[in-house]
Structures are given as C-alpha cells and as structure tokens.
C-alpha cells in the first residue's frame, strides 16, 4: 500500500479512483499521565506521555483507513489529510482521510 499526501504519486499513473477512505479514534489521557503533565507544566518542555499517546492514536486511525482502502480493492491512498479536534475536555479525536486509488 502506497500512502502519500500529494495529489499524485511521482512516477506512477492513477488508473482508478475508489473515493474517500477515512479512519478516526477518540482518545482520553489517563490520570497518571495527567498528573505527570501537571507537574511538567511548572518547568515547561515536552510532554513525552502525550506525544506517545497521540502517536499511538494516529497509528490506529491510520490502520483503520488502510483497512477500508483494502476492502475497496485499492492499492494506494493519495492526498492524505490529518485533523485533530478536542471533543471534550481531556479527550481528543484524531481523524485521517484520503482518496483510495489504484495505480499501475
């Protein structure tokens, strides 16, 4: 599966388009991480726990999008976009979408 965020894949020709595929996850932080982040807020800097959490969430959303593309019989996803929104205090949604296509 070739995944890119460009409209076309350099050096390849798009033969068929299968429409939009997407994947999303909503993740909440657990209390331990929240407390650690609260302490870290005094001195500032990177919140490693949150970075990892969001990376995991993104991987899962990515996986879901890819499964959908496989179901449609696509072998590539182009023009992938990410969006993050906070649905409630302490929980954020990661949403990934792209266009499933068949390339030669």
């Amino acid at each position: 599966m070739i995944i890119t965020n460009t409209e076309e894949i350099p050096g390849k020709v798009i033969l068929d388009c299968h429409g939009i595929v997407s994947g999303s996850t909503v993740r909440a932080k657990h209390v331990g991480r929240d407390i650690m982040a609260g302490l870290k807020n005094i001195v500032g800097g990177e919140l490693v726990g949150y970075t990892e959490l969001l990376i995991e969430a993104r991987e899962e959303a990515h996986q879901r999008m890819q499964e959908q593309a496989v179901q449609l019989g696509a072998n590539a996803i182009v023009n992938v976009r990410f969006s993050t929104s906070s649905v409630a205090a302490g929980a954020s949604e990661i949403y990934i979408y792209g266009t499933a296509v068949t390339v030669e």
Partner: protein
Amino acid sequence: MIDLYILLALVVTGYVVGQFLEKRHYRSIYEREAELVAIPTTSSKRPIGPIPDQVRAQLVEGACVISVDYFKRFVAGLRQIFGGNVRSYETLVDRSRREAILRLKESCANADQIINLRIETSSITKGKRGQVGAIEIHAYATALYFYSQ
C-alpha cells in the same frame, strides 16, 4: 500570603529550569538541523527538478507536544494587559515546530527528497479550566526514494 510565596516559588522554578531546558533544547535543534539540512525539503506538491522513473513514495510524520512553564505563563499574563508580541510563547511554538520537523526528517534520513510538508497545530488541553495550555504540533510529508537503473 502563603499563596503569594507559592506563586513566587513556582515562577522562579519555572524561570530557572525552563530557561535551562530551553537553551539545551535549542542547542540540540541547531545540531540536528545542521545534520539533516542535506535532504531537499519543500512544501510544494511537486518534486524539485527532474526525477528518475523508479521512485518510491511514502508518508512520513513527526509530532511533538509541548507545554509552557510557569514563568512564561506569568509573563504572558502581564503582556495581556499591554498587548504586543508575547515573545515567551513564540519561542515555545518555534521550538516545538522545529522539533516536529526534525523528527519527521529523522524518520526518513535516507530519503532523496521530502515534498508536500504540512504542519498542523492543535491545542490538546483546551476547555480545561485552570490548566496551562499544551499544544501539539504534527508535521507530515511525502518522502521520495529514488532508484537509479
């Protein structure tokens, strides 16, 4: 009175430790940026210059969550009275963007080109009262690997 002392202690700790961490982070950013400067990176959709027939394209990402320290928050609070540039937040966002881009580049250190770089900023602690803001920077791009025949 005790409240005031606690606030003062937090501000001083934030200043001393925060400044130290920031300096150290900037040093590491400069070093790593110099190492990775050789990969042509662009935010345009097309590759730079002619490309060979055999190309492998791959989505690459880098992310970084960063929070403000107590001192910066305090200074920004004062700034809001008079308005103007909040320098203390500017360095924070700058650091975290550059860190995210560096992580993206490090994940594909052998790539020949990186195209269509996009950077997205989101606040992850929005809506929580009394909590200092943390922002997430997410950078994503397409890495191209060239194969010569």
